[in-house]
């Protein structure tokens, strides 16, 4: 009883001792915050990685191929039996993506994935990461009229954006054409007025006239529909993704009344042998788009911090814009291939590594482009088979089963691994980081322990007389010792308890705190453009908190053992004599 009473009274009257456990409090709070944030980070990352990577995959090198993927899937399904939920075939290849950014060329390397739009979404978390909400519900590689993130794109995405952009482009081109013709008219009028000059010029321009179709020849005041220099009309109408001919030009080039187009070209001697093309067969960028491609959001999105401090999104390319991809065919003599695509959506997993490099094309399209389709059977080969397992299946066991099915001595080019194998370096780095942080923070608490030891030793020295009194009144050494052990424990408990409360509150409001610190210091604490997440993820693990609390209290008790032992060993007479 007296032990409790005295521990309590010492606790209440000795604020210096409370000060000595502030470091315990801080240590505990920091431990909880660090553990929660790291756990949240790992948790989120695992979720995302897992979602993107699928459970198990069989892959080969990106410039090689797995032939007969259907047969492989069949064998895999047989091997795994009930454990398998779905399998999908993927072609992966590095590629170059290039597009126009306000007249300047942008080219970057990407990882191109050819995906089967029916099964891919069942094997990985693909669809939830798309920005278009219609695509999230029913996936396709078509450009959508609507459903693009209003907040992100402010309406500048999809069909409407594409039509507006093309319309503007056409108008600009019409203007420049008009300017050209005005210029030419003026020039012609000028030369007509001063024939003496024309003579000298015409002599020099004779060669040019031949090459360029008599551009500077003295012509009638109204110029016929001659296309711009260096562009043949076929290119202008049929092949170019961004049509160079205006609607008016098209109308002009249609000589007919019956709705057919005669490819009129004064320079094409074979024009009359070419088949006639119906107008609805023509590629009209206002109504049609190229092969749909889905780009990682970070390829296009740039977060720009304005001088005022707010973040603004800028986009290099938007859904509805066209882009070229350049890749090579597979085989023993790879050839470069260029394909024009239309961006139909963005993929935003918030894993920067993926968002900044991934692009998705339809599987068959990519197989075709890379020459992966067997001309005899019409079957395409793939580079990866991704497998999703049923809940509770043992990943490593499945991997081993598959390795047994495709033994490395027969399939040395196959790489069979789980998503954890793939991300092992990252996951183990994070784990090691957490371990080291925990050790360091426990060292902080241990340092606090020495503070407690010193403080307690002083208190024991100060309380020597009281200890003598208690002993003189018949208190056993054990009892005296337990006063100080109890004191240490209650201090440790108070410190730890306060630390836990502070830590949990900090974790709960961590994003608000980060914002507040950012406002106060002007330094952004958590930059979403650097990290994988838009806000700091946290997971509070009760087991961790329990062990942190146990550890901290144990350190406080251990630190009070030495002073308590000293107190217990005091001789009552000596202690009483102590003044």
């Amino acid at each position, binding site marked *: 009883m*007296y032990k409790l009473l005295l521990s309590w009274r010492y606790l209440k009257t000795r604020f210096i001792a409370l000060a000595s456990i502030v470091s315990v409090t801080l240590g505990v709070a920091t431990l909880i915050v660090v553990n929660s944030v790291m756990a949240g980070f790992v948790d989120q990352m695992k979720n995302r990685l897992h979602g993107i990577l699928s459970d198990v995959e069989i892959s080969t090198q990106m410039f090689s191929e797995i032939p007969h993927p259907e047969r492989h899937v069949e064998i895999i399904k047989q091997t795994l039996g009930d454990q398998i939920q779905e399998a999908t075939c993927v072609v992966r290849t590095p590629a170059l993506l290039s597009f126009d950014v306000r007249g300047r060329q942008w080219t970057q390397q990407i990882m191109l994935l050819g995906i089967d739009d029916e099964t891919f979404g069942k094997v990985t978390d693909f669809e939830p990461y798309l920005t278009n909400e219609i695509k999230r519900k029913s996936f396709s590689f078509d450009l959508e009229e609507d459903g693009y993130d209003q907040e992100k794109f402010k309406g500048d995405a999809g069909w409407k954006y594409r039509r507006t952009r093309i319309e503007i482009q056409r108008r600009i081109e019409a203007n420049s054409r008009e300017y050209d013709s005005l210029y030419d008219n003026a020039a012609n009028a000028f030369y007509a007025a001063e024939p003496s000059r024309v003579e000298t010029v015409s002599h020099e321009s004779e060669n040019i006239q031949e090459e360029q179709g008599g551009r500077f020849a003295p012509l009638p005041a109204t110029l016929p529909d001659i296309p711009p220099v260096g562009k043949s009309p076929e290119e202008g109408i049929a092949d170019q993704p961004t049509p160079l001919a205006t609607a008016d030009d098209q109308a002009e080039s249609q000589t007919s009344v019956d709705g057919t187009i005669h490819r009129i070209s004064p320079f094409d001697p074979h024009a009359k042998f070419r088949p006639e093309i119906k107008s609805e067969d023509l590629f009209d960028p206002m109504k049609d788009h190229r092969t749909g491609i889905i780009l990682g959001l970070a390829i296009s999105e740039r977060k720009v911090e304005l001088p005022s401090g707010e973040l603004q999104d800028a986009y290099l390319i938007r859904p509805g814009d066209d882009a070229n991809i350049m890749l090579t065919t597979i085989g023993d003599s790879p050839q470069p291939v260029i394909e024009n695509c239309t961006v139909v959506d963005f993929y935003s997993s918030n894993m920067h590594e993926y968002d900044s490099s991934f692009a998705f094309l339809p599987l068959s399209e990519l197989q075709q482009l890379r020459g992966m389709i067997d001309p005899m059977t019409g079957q395409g080969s793939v580079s990866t088979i991704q497998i999703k397992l049923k809940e509770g299946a043992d990943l490593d066991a499945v991997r081993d089963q598959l390795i047994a099915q495709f033994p490395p001595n027969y399939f040395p080019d196959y790489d069979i691994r789980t998503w954890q194998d793939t991300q092992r370096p990252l996951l183990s780095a994070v784990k090691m980081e957490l371990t080291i942080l925990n050790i360091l923070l426990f060292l902080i608490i241990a340092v606090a322990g020495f503070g407690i030891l010193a403080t307690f030793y002083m208190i024991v020295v100060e309380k020597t*007389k009281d200890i003598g009194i*208690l002993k003189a009144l*018949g208190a056993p050494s054990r009892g005296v010792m337990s006063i100080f052990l109890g004191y240490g424990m209650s201090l440790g408990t108070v410190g730890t308890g306060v630390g836990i409360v502070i830590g949990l509150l900090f974790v709960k409001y961590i994003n608000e705190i980060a914002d507040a610190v950012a406002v106060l210091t002007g330094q952004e604490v958590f930059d979403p453009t650097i990290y994988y997440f838009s806000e700091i993820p946290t997971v509070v693990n009760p087991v961790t908190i329990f062990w942190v609390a146990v550890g901290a209290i144990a350190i406080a008790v251990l630190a009070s053992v030495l002073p308590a032992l000293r107190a217990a060993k005091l001789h009552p*007479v000596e202690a009483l004599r102590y003044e």
Partner: protein
Amino acid sequence: MSDVAPSQPLRIDPESKGDNMPASELNSNKGLSKKKSNSAPLRIVDTSVMSVNGLFKSYGKGAVQVPVLKGVDLEIEEGGFTAIIGQSGSGKSTLLHLLGTLDAPDSGEIYFRDQRIDNLPPRQQEYLRNREFGLIFQFYHLLPELTTLENVLIPRMVQDGFFRYLKNKRSYRKRAIELLEMVGLSHRLTHKPSQLSGGEMQRTAIARSLISDPSILLADEPTGNLDSENGAEVMETLTALRKHENLTVVMVTHDDQLASQADRVINLVNGVVAS
């Protein structure tokens, strides 16, 4: 002050003694001498509650041994008031500590109710100190963090476990309040020692020494640190309580005037009983 001397021979020199001796202590003798002696009527008791045979005790280590008690024999009678007097450094406080099992003698035996107590295991010595001996010190030795009432209850708290104490708490409190009333401190129950005067503190200490209903009260210069008025009050309280509770009292003092109130005076000179 005198009990400091034996263990630290260097401090016996007059200067340090002068430093440590408060003026009030010197005055107290004069003050008390004016008061008329208030001794209780003698009670003839032939049973001895404590006896001491050939007690030796020296302090210090190795070569610098300072002998304090050099063969003390004495008997303490049941219900008597024994005063041990002697000069500073004569070993009277040491003797009292040995009687109270706070210290162990070098040789010799101490008997309490015919049982040798100087070589008992610590557990039993603690029991004796807690239940059989009431100890009063010159410097009161109250616990500064506790109130008067709690200080009085401390021996009971030490004696009982947590739950047993809670069970008996009511009767203990009642007895403590009763004792504090007896020493005239019923209005000071919730005060801390720092809020009390010296006399009040000593009276609290007396109440504390009586809470466990001891059979013998060992007082080490109970008035040594008080002015004459407070000292007299404390002595009065002690005497009244002795009669009321029928106590055996052993009091160490260097004040002959106080000693004269005792039934029996033992004069300790240079570590041996003189008279």
